[in-house]
């Protein structure tokens, strides 16, 4: 062929993606001619197309007179194909054209077996139809192409590609039986098919239904008049006229159905089609998705959305030569089928790289972190921890009918709390391989265990304590004895609160007898802290003694302490707590106000309880006795970090200290050497504290650091009394509480109460009776967590009961130290950090007077989403409130601040407390006036000496502050001795110099805090400092307060105070260690102040009066 005759492929090359392949091939010339004008001049091309199209349409109008009207169509279609190589489009109207053509001649016998016509149909079926099989079936029913081999070949090929090989085979057979022509070709194709089949035998899963399904009358297509013949003049297929439809009897959904208006059904000429009269155009078939034409009256016009004709997907251009041969054209997806996707996360179920598959249950267990968990070990540990405890441990086992301890609970049975240590902030992660956290153990709370112990003394227990090691056998029958978390003992009655009452009774009985602690005093003094001067008095020997009273006192040492107070005996209840807004509490006979000393602090006892000698000697007792006592908070010049070896004493003494253990000191012999000794001066024989953290420079508020610490704690948090953790449970009450608070706030402000004004109840289900609170109002919003006033329903109920009983008050030992109204701090995400700090602080303080000045943490409930900390509630306001009230008071003469003696009194209190904290290694971290609650117990006048007593005697110990908000607390013992901290948060004048200047800090944070408090009290303003260079001191700059001390104040005292507090590093020399904390210096200042106050307090207004007037009046709440 001469070169110029052949069309250069270059012309076509550029557009090849846009060219729809045609099985019969395209004329290159035509393509070239089509494509070039397109590229050159679209507008001209368009008009040309239009012209030609009109020509064709004209022809079609007269086509019925022709011998071969089909020819017109075919030419028209061919022209369309040539002109619009990209196939069907709005411009080309190819689909429409083919539809018109095919529908046109359905009934026309002339073309029934015309291969050209059939080819059109096949093209339609393969390229455009959404249900090709249906097309073929339709053709069959209408006797189209039944004599043509092409029909059978195409259909069979299509079936084969769908995997329906049986059906495909059927088609071939049918074609051969029908003598379709050309027969040889059909035969040949059939053979090829058979070859393919043999090469790849079909599985049994082929659908075996007939290829041409029997027509079901129910599915009879409705005759659509107006669609068929006679509509060729319209370019677009007309909308179907309304027709009656067979509606389902109950139409629950708006199933599309043709409208109801009846129309004359077209007489169906060929009944044999049995309903396959027509197959409908594509648009008709999809009519559900288009709205019918209706008159505009009353119609709402929706925003227009361009509707894409369905079934037309972008056919990805494939430049393959085989495309033509492959009958099966994957035009859309798998030939009209929708793609599938699994609803479930298959990567989780069948992880890559692993052979193992995991069921949903396994995944859920992994998500909870319980999949790989060694439950056997867990059980063993639990048993060991609480091995004597055969008794029923938790309420959950009892049926609903027997209500759990506290009557107020709903009938929904409490869920057993499993306190598994959950340090990780990332909840919901699937799997934690190789748990790095401490081994969680079952929490068998001390109360129940100690009940057991009481039982031991009060009478033989039904179940003898069993040895923990029995339960190591997996399948063995030991589980009968394996009583850790099941109830076995039918004899011990655990329903309701009776069981607890029983031993408790004994306890109380004993204590009342022994209220006078004298006899025990001496026992204690052996290992009491170094008795020095006033320290001794502060030591509360009496209360300590009372603790030693009995074996039983452990549990109720709260009661013991309470009773041991000189004045209030258990029977004499001091006046009730100050009134609360909404409800006046009844006169309670329970001693609420007395127990300033938080007595429910049953400290974590890693050491098994039996170490105290209840049961025959256990090896664990030995290491335990060595290091029971930690440093004495009172020893002035001693190294507080030094352990004091505990001189072994008899069981009784051990008992006393049991609750006050320093568990962290307990070194396990098999401990991995992660820890290092804390200080250089540790006495050799005593076991030393090892720091849990190795960093010497870090941000102490870092949550990761905290979680790590918590996870490494020994004993673990979950063994702390009052600590409950349900890692996987969502408590989900924060929104309800917030709503309620909002609603009540609105109400109070006189607004409309919105939302629920029903006080939310919080029910914490634990293994030992649970606790139950009702939120009353919000007390304040901390930086991270709101605090609410709640009513402790258990206490409330007990009180009410007690009232009724009108006699001996039997305090449920569990409620010892608890009050009717408490404070609830809610955090999310939850963190037990504050709980840990408070407990540790109070732990280490033991009997120190300062312990009174640290708020107590009663319970901590940790859930997956929220955390709830229960602490004491004081309603006398904070120092900030006092200062504010003072400023607002017109009678105020001392300027902005408080009276000097009052300020000094409170300063002394704060100094003492912080000193004590520092001595035991705790930094508060956030000392400020609003974190100091006023703590002034009402005191009968005659017991309170107007003369200030620095040692707290004669009523003075009842007056002071309570420090709250230990959220920023730091336990220095966790860190190496030379650790320094860095603050990465925004700072202001309320923060110490080092923080402001981005220098590392430790104890200074508290010194500055004390300075800030003192400044506020004196000046009524927030502290401001200045620097001044003091060349005499080697050039180190000093910090000074900005305010000027009043002339009539004790300038020397205050000067010294601020000097030391603001420049602590310059006073370290005076200390033993030569480093901070500068307790000595602080103490000396405090002592000077105390001396002054003692000498001068009763002058003038008198401190007592001031305290009474200013502090004891409940601060006005907002």
């Amino acid at each position, binding site marked *: 062929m001469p070169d110029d005759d052949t069309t250069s492929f270059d012309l076509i090359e550029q557009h090849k993606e846009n060219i729809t392949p045609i099985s019969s091939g395209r004329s290159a010339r035509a393509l070239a001619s089509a494509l070039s004008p397109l590229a050159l001049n679209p507008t001209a091309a368009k008009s040309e197309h239009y012209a030609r199209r009109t020509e064709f349409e004209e022809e079609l109008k007269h086509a019925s007179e022709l011998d071969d009207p089909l020819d017109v169509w075919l030419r028209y279609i061919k022209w369309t194909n040539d002109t619009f190589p990209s196939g069907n489009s709005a411009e080309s109207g190819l689909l429409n054209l083919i539809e018109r053509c095919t529908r046109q001649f359905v009934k026309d016998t002339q073309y029934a077996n015309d291969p050209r016509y059939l080819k059109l149909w096949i093209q339609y079926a393969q390229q455009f139809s959404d249900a090709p099989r249906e097309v073929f079936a339709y053709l069959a029913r209408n006797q189209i192409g039944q004599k043509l081999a092409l029909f059978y070949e195409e259909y069979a090929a299509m079936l084969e590609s769908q995997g329906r090989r049986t059906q495909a085979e059927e088609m071939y057979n049918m074609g051969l039986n029908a003598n379709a022509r050309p027969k040889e070709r059909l035969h040949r194709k059939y053979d090829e098919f058979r070859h393919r089949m043999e090469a790849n035998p079909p599985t049994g899963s082929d659908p075996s239904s007939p290829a041409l399904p029997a027509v079901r009358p129910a599915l009879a297509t409705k005759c659509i008049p107006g669609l068929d013949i006679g509509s060729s003049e319209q370019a677009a297929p007309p909308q179907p006229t309304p027709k009656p439809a067979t509606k389902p009897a109950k139409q629950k959904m708006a199933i599309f159905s043709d409208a109801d208006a009846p129309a004359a059904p077209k007489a169906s000429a060929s009944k044999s089609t049995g309903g396959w009269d027509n197959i409908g155009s594509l648009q008709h078939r999809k009519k559900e998705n288009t709205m019918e034409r209706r008159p505009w009256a009353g119609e709402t016009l929706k925003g227009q959305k361009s509707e894409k004709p369905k079934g037309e997907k*972008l056919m990805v251009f494939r430049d393959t030569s085989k495309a033509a041969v492959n009958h099966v054209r994957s035009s859309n997806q798998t030939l009209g089928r*929708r793609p599938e996707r699994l609803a479930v996360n298959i990567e989780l179920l069948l992880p890559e790289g692993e052979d193992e598959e995991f069921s949903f249950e396994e995944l859920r267990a992994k998500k*909870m972190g319980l999949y790989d968990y060694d439950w056997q070990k867990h059980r063993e540990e639990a048993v060991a921890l609480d091995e004597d405890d055969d008794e029923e441990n938790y309420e959950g086992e009892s049926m609903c009918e027997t209500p759990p301890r506290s009557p107020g609970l709903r009938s*929904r049975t409490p869920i057993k709390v499993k306190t598994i240590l959950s340090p990780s902030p990332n909840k919901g992660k699937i799997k934690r391989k190789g748990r790095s956290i401490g081994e969680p153990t079952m929490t068998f709370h001390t109360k129940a265990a100690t009940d057991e112990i009481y039982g031991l003394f009060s009478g033989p227990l039904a179940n003898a304590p069993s040895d923990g090691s029995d339960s190591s056998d997996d399948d063995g029958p030991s*589980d009968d004895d394996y009583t850790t*978390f099941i109830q076995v003992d039918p004899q011990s009655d655990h329903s309701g609160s009776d069981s607890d009452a029983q031993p408790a009774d004994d306890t109380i009985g004993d204590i009342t007898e022994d209220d006078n602690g004298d006899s025990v005093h001496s026992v204690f003094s052996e290992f009491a802290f170094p008795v020095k001067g006033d320290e001794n008095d502060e030591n509360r020997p009496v209360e300590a003694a009372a603790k030693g009273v009995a074996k039983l006192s452990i549990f109720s040492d709260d009661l013991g302490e309470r009773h041991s107070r000189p004045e209030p005996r258990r029977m004499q209840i001091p006046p009730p707590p100050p009134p609360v807004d909404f409800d006046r509490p009844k006169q309670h006979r329970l001693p609420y106000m007395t127990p300033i000393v938080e007595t429910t602090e049953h400290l974590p006892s890693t050491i098994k309880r039996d170490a105290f000698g209840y049961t025959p000697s256990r090896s664990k007792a030995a290491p335990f006795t060595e290091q029971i006592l930690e440093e004495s908070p009172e020893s002035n010049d001693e190294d507080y970090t030094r352990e004091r070896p505990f001189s072994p004493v008899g069981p009784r003494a051990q008992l006393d200290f049991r609750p006050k253990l320093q568990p962290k000191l307990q070194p396990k012999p098999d401990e991995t050497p992660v820890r290092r000794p804390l200080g250089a001066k540790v006495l050799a024989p005593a076991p030393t504290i090892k720091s849990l953290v190795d960093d010497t420079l870090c941000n102490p508020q870092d949550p990761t650091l905290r979680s790590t610490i918590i996870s490494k704690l020994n004993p673990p948090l979950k063994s702390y009394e009052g600590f409950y953790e349900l890692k996987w449970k969502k408590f989900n009450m924060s929104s309800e509480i917030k709503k309620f608070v909002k609603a009540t706030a609105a109400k109070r402000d006189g607004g409309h109460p919105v939302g629920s004004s029903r006080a939310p109840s919080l029910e914490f289900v634990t293994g030992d009776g649970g606790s139950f609170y009702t939120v009353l109002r919000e007390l304040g919003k901390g930086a991270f967590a709101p605090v609410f006033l709640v009513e402790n329903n258990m206490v409330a109920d007990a009180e009410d009961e007690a009232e009724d009983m009108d006699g001996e008050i039997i305090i449920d030992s569990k409620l010892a130290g608890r009050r009717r109204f408490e404070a609830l701090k809610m955090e999310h995400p939850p963190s037990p950090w504050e709980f840990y700090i408070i407990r540790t602080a109070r732990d280490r303080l033991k009997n120190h007077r300062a312990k009174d000045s640290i708020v107590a943490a009663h319970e901590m409930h940790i859930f997956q989403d929220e955390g709830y900390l229960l602490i004491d509630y004081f309603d006398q306001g904070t120092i900030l409130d006092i200062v504010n009230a003072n400023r607002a008071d017109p009678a105020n003469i001392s300027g902005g601040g408080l009276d000097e003696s009052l300020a000094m009194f409170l300063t002394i209190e704060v100094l003492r407390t912080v000193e004590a904290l520092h001595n035991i290694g705790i930094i508060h971290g956030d000392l400020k006036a609003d974190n100091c609650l006023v703590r002034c117990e009402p005191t009968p006048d005659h017991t309170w000496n107007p003369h200030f007593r620095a040692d707290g005697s004669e009523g003075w110990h009842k007056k002071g502050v309570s420090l709250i908000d230990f959220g920023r607390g730091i336990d220095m013992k966790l860190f190496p001795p030379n650790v320094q901290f860095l603050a990465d948060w925004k700072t202001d004048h309320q923060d110490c110099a080092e923080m402001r200047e981005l220098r590392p800090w430790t104890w200074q944070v508290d010194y500055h805090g004390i300075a800030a408090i003192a400044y506020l009290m004196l000046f009524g303003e927030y502290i401001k400092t200045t620097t001044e260079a003091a060349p005499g001191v080697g050039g180190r700059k000093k910090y000074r307060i900005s305010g000027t001390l009043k002339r009539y104040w004790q300038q020397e005292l205050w000067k010294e105070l601020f000097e030391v507090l603001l420049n602590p590093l310059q006073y370290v020399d005076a200390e033993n260690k030569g480093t901070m904390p500068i307790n000595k210096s602080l103490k000396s200042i405090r002592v000077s102040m105390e001396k002054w106050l003692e000498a001068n307090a009763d002058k003038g207004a008198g401190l007592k009066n001031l305290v009474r007037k200013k502090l004891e009046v409940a601060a006005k709440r907002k």
Partner: protein
Amino acid sequence: MSDPAPKQRELPSPPDDAISSIDFSPTSSRLLVSSWDSNVHLYDTSGAGSKIASFTHPSPVLSCCFGRDDNEMFSACLDWSVNHLDPATGTIRTLYTHTSGVSSLLFSTAHNLLISGSWDGSLSLLPVTSSTPTPTTLRLPTKIHSLSTSTHHLIVALSNRLFHLYDLRHFVPGNPSSLAPTQTRESSLKFMTRTIACMPPYPNRDPSLDGYACSSIEGRIAVEFYDPSPETQARKYAFKCHRQVEKQPSSESSPPVAEEEVDVVYPVNALTFHPIIPSLFASGGGDGIVSLWDGEKKRRIRNLPRYRASVAALAWSRDGKRLVVATSGGFEGGDQEGECSRESVGVWVREMEDELKPKGKGK
């Protein structure tokens, strides 16, 4: 048309977390529900339904069942234990433990056997009449996911699509080797096995048509038969189910197609045969749909109105007049994080008398 009595009631006080299994009492209208909230809840389904008690365990409970009567109940937990629950005293007594979570538990009434299967591949059988709770334990090659029994048959569905078929008449307590599988089969479904259910002993049924139904996580159910003969085996079949059409954005980046329809395929979490009507079984899927199937005619009878969360378990009452449907969210329902909200958890009791026959007319 609508009947006055409510067709379906939701039981009060549902569990707080996902439901793992349910079991109807053999003698009364009581129902046991075990849950990931570590409880086994006992309900009375008569009347409006009420909760009788909850038994709190130390760990999530994976399975539960009644024993011979209402006084005997058993639970199987994540903490490896198999426990006896006493409704009279509310006590939980651990009978024995496996060395991994106990995924399935059932009671064979014909043999008075408590049978438990664990992820450690151990299958334990304990005659409840024995004096000591020492089960006979068989070691199977892989993890056990599901168990089903009917009179003498026991089918164990293991991981990797393996089935073991046993005849309990062979079992001699104390002798693990007495019970060897009569057949081991690979599931005809290509995806992970989800659950299995044995056909109950229908009277007058051709014994060769005795078999079971099994389901996979890929929206498919297969009905198979015990008889290993080729003719019977040829009659087994499988079908697709529990798929919902959803629109999702087309994955192709080319703009013209905004959305395409896809079939979202849900796992079939529950299968249970009707106790009386032969070949009628119900399936519950992650799509929240319960479908009723006619196994003989191989067609679906109907779908129940969609429940608000994935169907976790199904159980027929003894007289077959009521169906209990338990739903809870999680991985099974398509939640990629496996979250189970409290609202998703529910247990319904549905009157089924009118719904067991196929619909009168065509669709």
